[in-house]
């Protein structure tokens, strides 16, 4: 056990916790039993941007994961995996066997436990929903040290409270998840360069359903008639024979190409002009319309993983990511927010727009049928807190909400308004953890435990 300063991926607001590496459920239960008034929390790979995986003054448990413990049932297309296993490790095991994860975020360095705890979504949300939809059952370590096996058909209430529950119901020790069968490890990708926001929203509304995966990258620095110019990429897993045959159609070996060194000037490298230039080049480089391009899984899903520790580029003060969703019929809010961000000249790399499909029964799950926009900015940008507060109001007034796995800025009122079923979740949670052993900085900041 060592007292360690922790931050999220955004590297803002460090807090210190006693970090314990635990080998198995028994060791985890023993550690949780020693937790004092600041409680305990599981941490995965620390890819949430804010304080979701921090527990200041308390215990933080890092579970070991053995890939030997993975059991793949190929005929049923399901896998039982340890909660601490990463999607990276899992993909290396299943892609060569003709399977893909049901949902992957923009990085493969996330754990299965956190994928459930954050109920993560991917480019296929409009078709497949979020990660929790694909979990058949999971083993949960409760605050009292016992382990329960739950699923959508077994103690559904606790199961759905755990999906999206940000680690505050217990530790996911293992989960059985449904996999997507694939014929090749290649993606077939269509790309469209879209001149403005209105065209983009129309294109996505009309065409998204023809593709399993869809996402748009928006240049938020573009102004005037270029406002919201973007590149829309949509695709699917390539079929066998679709492209020139490779020796092994299921070959998979993603690599990290470079890594950002630890010593970056404190101001960070991302000056406004540099970001604007990058966005410009990136837009011009995209084809105006291209179909059925062959891409690797890593290029299509995890482009940022090619650069190790890229979060250091923002300098010592770190950066914040802002992700919200508003209902489908409130695209006016998306428009207004894109206008605001463009007008305020916030240096933000490409923002990501995605059209969500239906949500799931989890009270704290983020996705709802609607538009979700994600952007990031150096936290040192003057006036950013006030700008975000302005956006918060627009989002919440429209019946939208913010994503806890990304958030580092909100207060309790925004959480309550965005998640009207919070009280219901609290009641389920409280029943399995009356002493509030599970705690986190996120829970303190948003007063999630009630």
């Amino acid at each position, binding site marked *: 056990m060592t007292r360690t300063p922790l931050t999220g991926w955004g590297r803002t607001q460090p807090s*210190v916790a006693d970090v314990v590496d635990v080998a198995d459920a028994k060791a985890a239960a023993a550690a949780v039993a020693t937790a004092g008034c*600041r409680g305990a929390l599981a941490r995965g790979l620390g890819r949430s941007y804010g304080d979701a995986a921090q527990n*200041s*003054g308390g215990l933080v448990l890092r579970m070991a994961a053995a890939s030997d413990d993975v059991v793949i049932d190929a005929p049923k297309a399901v896998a039982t995996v340890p909660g601490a296993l990463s999607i990276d490790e899992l993909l290396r095991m299943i892609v060569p066997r003709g399977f893909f994860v049901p949902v992957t975020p923009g990085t493969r360095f996330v754990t299965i436990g956190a994928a459930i705890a954050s109920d993560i979504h991917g480019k296929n949300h409009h078709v497949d929903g979020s990660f929790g939809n694909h979990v058949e059952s999971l083993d949960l370590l409760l605050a009292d040290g016992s382990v329960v096996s739950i699923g959508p058909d077994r103690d559904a209430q606790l199961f759905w409270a755990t999906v999206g529950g940000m680690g505050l119901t217990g530790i996911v020790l293992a989960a059985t998840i449904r996999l997507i069968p694939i014929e090749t490890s290649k993606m077939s990708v269509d790309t469209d360069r879209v001149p403005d926001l209105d065209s983009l929203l129309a294109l996505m509304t009309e065409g998204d359903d023809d593709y399993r995966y869809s996402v748009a990258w928006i240049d938020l620095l573009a102004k005037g008639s270029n406002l919201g110019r973007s590149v829309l990429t949509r695709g699917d897993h390539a079929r066998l024979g679709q492209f020139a045959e490779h020796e092994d159609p299921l070959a998979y070996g993603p690599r990290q190409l470079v890594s950002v060194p630890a010593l970056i000037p404190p101001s960070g490298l991302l000056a406004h002009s540099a970001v604007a230039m990058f966005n410009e080049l990136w837009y011009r480089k995209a084809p105006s319309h291209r179909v059925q391009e062959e891409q690797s899984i890593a290029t299509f899903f995890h482009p940022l993983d090619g650069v190790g520790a890229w979060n250091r580029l923002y300098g010592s003060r770190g950066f*914040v990511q802002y992700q919200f969703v508003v209902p489908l019929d409130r695209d006016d809010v998306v428009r207004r927010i894109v206008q605001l961000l463009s007008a305020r000249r916030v240096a933000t790399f490409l923002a990501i727009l995605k059209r969500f499909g239906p949500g799931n029964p989890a009270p704290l799950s983020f996705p709802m049928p609607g538009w979700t926009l994600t952007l990031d900015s150096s936290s040192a940008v003057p006036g950013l*807190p006030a700008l975000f507060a302005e956006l918060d109001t627009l989002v919440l007034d429209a019946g939208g909400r913010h994503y806890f796995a990304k958030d*580092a800025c909100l*207060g309790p009122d925004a959480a309550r308004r965005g998640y009207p079923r919070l009280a219901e979740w609290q009641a389920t949670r409280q029943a399995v953890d009356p002493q509030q052993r599970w705690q986190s*900085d996120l829970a303190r*900041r948003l007063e999630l435990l009630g």
Partner: protein
Amino acid sequence: MQNAFGEPQQVLLLGGTSEIGLAIVAAFQQTTLRRVVLACRDVAKGESKATALRRDGLDVSVVEFHGEDTASHQGLIDAIAGDIDVAIVAFGQLGDAAVTATDVAAAAELCNVDFVAAVSATIAVGNRMRQQGHGAIMVISSIAGDRVRKGNPVYGGAKAGLDGFAQGYGDAVASDGVHVMVLRPGFVHSQMTAGMEPAPFATTPEEVAQIALAGLASRRRIVWAPKVLRLVSIAFRHLPGPVWRRVPF
């Protein structure tokens, strides 16, 4: 809990009627602030300040706090509910320079408040924040403690001691997640300086507050208010002793 910008939800003001301290609280009020604890020697005066702050829906409580009563510090701070995100050590007295420079008892008394009590209160807050694993302490020092002047050596000396302590203490508690920021104002128009001839670069509590918040957001360890005083300080330090002695303040 602070957010990504270091904005606090609960602030403790030690010296709950300090004009500089209250200006800092008011500046935080424009952010995510929800709860304030004013620790005051004069509770009635504190209540009147609390009433003004409550107008905007802030949750404000007033507790009785006497700097000299160092034995009470830890208990008082531990009794505060919820995480203390930011504490401001703002209490202090200027003293009557003519008296403190000659009267042994008065000098000791001033040091007791400006140095001994401030050290004690800072440590009491620090202990609490080390358990929390996070938090920031703003310790209000002064340019008077930078190079101590003949005009008020006891006040200046006490501030010099506090300033040095706070820097070293900040280094000691950093690994426990506690950030200590030393705030060094120059002449500030407040009840402390009422009726005095303003010194060059005189400023207001509001301006000091803005500078303090910006400094905290970038996790600075030493913050001058106004900023130009950093240069003034360098100039002062380089004056030879005989010249310094003849400077008329």
